[in-house]
């Protein structure tokens, strides 16, 4: 079984703060982490390997420092890692990102491709299904349990709004996974020592036979027009006075607005 896990290095958005004056992100001291949903994707890949045999390859597209994320994935027990890094990839939207990742998957070949359900920085959840379409293979989103897997078949539970579906697919297939699927393992000490020496492959556009016009900013149908801080309400009113006075004022306002 050839398993590929796609991951992304992201800033820990739980730690991100906004500078209220400039409306920009305060990045200082914010750690970079493996996207939390991708940790579950890595764990899923390792568990499938334990059951069905095979090899787990981790791929990511990003700036050179994303190598740190790949080393962490290797220390959890993955066999191999590829970093797609080049200036030509910069500025990719989900269309160009999934094109690039799909070209790398094509080169590596896989029976199962696993992604986290979404990243915590972009929050789009689009890259997984888009990779599947580029590869012309089926995908199943929001996998919360793998009920069975053989060399050419998989059966999973797919999380939906009002419960879950039981879905079967032929292989090759792409899965996007949710947190309920598993508990990611910690890197082993042996793994940590071994990865220090591990070689990480670095591939650019020519290595994956990518068409340059589909890459990066140039290959992205969507463009960011601007970024701003979330709006502050303009009708806001801080009530003043003793507790009783404030509550009275609130009751009056709520009655005026017909909330009471």
């Amino acid at each position: 079984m050839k398993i590929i896990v796609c991951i992304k290095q992201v800033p820990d958005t739980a730690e991100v703060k906004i500078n209220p004056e400039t409306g920009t992100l305060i990045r200082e001291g914010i750690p970079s982490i493996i996207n939390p949903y991708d940790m579950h994707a890595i764990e899923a890949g390792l568990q499938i390997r334990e059951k069905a045999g095979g090899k787990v390859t981790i791929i990511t597209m990003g700036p050179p420092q994303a190598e740190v994320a790949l080393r962490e994935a290797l220390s959890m027990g993955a066999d191999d890692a590829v970093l797609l890094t080049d200036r030509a990839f910069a500025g990719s939207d989900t269309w160009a990102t999934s094109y690039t990742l799909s070209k790398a998957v094509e080169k590596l070949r896989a029976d199962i491709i696993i992604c986290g359900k979404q990243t915590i920085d972009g929050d789009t959840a689009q890259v997984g299904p888009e990779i599947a379409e580029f590869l012309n293979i089926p995908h199943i989103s929001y996998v919360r349990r793998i009920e069975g897997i053989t060399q050419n078949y998989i059966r999973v539970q797919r999380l939906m709004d009002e419960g879950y579906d039981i879905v079967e697919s032929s292989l090759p297939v792409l899965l996007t996974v949710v947190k309920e699927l598993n508990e990611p393992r910690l890197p082993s000490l042996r793994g940590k020592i071994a990865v220090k020496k591990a070689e990480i492959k670095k591939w650019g556009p020519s290595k994956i036979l990518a068409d340059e016009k589909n890459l990066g900013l140039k290959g992205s149908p969507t463009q960011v027009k601007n970024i701003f801080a979330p709006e502050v309400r303009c009708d806001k009113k801080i009530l003043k006075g003793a507790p009783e006075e404030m509550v009275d004022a609130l009751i009056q306002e709520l009655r005026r607005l017909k909330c009471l």
Partner: protein
Amino acid sequence: MPIIVNIDKCTGCKECLASCPFDAIVIKEEKAFINEYCQICMACINSCPEGAIEEVGEEVSKKSQDFLEHKGVWVFAEQRSGKAASVSYELLGTGRRLADELNVELSVVLLGASEEEAQELIRWGADKVYFCDDPIFERFNDEPHSQLLSSLINTYRPEIVLAGATPIGRSFIPRVAVRLGTGLTADCTSLLIDRETRNLLQVRPAFGGNIIATILCPNHRPQMATVRPRVMKRGEYIEGKKGEIIYIKADNLSSRTKVIDTIKEISEIAVNLQEADIIVSGGRGLGSARGFKLLEELAKLLGGAIGASRCAVDEGWISYSHQIGQTGKTVCPKLYIACGISGAVQHLVGMQTSDIIVAINKNPEAPIFNVATYGIVGDLYEIVPLLIKKVKETQGHREAEKR
């Protein structure tokens, strides 16, 4: 590189350094310099007090050839067990507004469900419904959905296609965008038209709600977006409104995935939360599970539901099904009363579109006050009991008036 520092304007003040999520700005010889780590995320553009950070164009891609042939606004109306999901009506409200502004038709694609349901969508604002009742669409399956929607779009060429940012929309719409070679913006919270270019301005939160971005798809058609449920308002329901239903055949659809079974597993609490007009919500400031007893009393009095911040859920004071925010539910009640919730951005994204927000918090600096319509700085254990007492009085008064 498309983002550069204009060396003549740069004063070397280092203001921009912290704005970069990728550590791509460095100071060299007392000037800022953008290195190869740059991902062109634009976060730095507004950080420079001198305006020295500029986007330089390399005219990006050319407009696709059939650009001008695309006309009309489309909404994909998802259905569950034969009923259009509530997000479909919200999309019709927004779609109607966009279509009127562009002076074009509003059409709906309804796969599965009944003709009656199609008529209902017309009364909610659609001019046309592309309707297919083939049993293949009874259960949601990505491949047949993406195949048929893509081929309909290729045939009829709308300029805008909207779908709900639900598990269904977010799973198969990306496949459609790739098939059509066009852009897709996820989970939008606001959609506007740029009158000059007829471009759709797609507004969405990113970085866990810490920033808001406006996204464009200037050179490709259709422009596609998924829209966050319960953020946009429904349109007007017009009894007796007439429209056209176009019957579609499901020919040549194939699927390598098969949906064996659909299991319902939804708690009553979750349903109540999303339908409630009034939500009383508690956070870390409650201090213990006991605090929710007090909030329940208020909620019961107002006929509202109980919500919670992630802190309160993580502390084990209340179950996850009450959680509101990025990793919980998005709600949009008429009245949201936040008690002892500081207002981390992850919570705000789940409730800030509520009509009226009341915040009760000890800390006057708490970010919840930035989104509150009415703020009360004080101890919730003093304020809430008072509020309960006064609400009772008001209601008693009104009862007396009625008699």
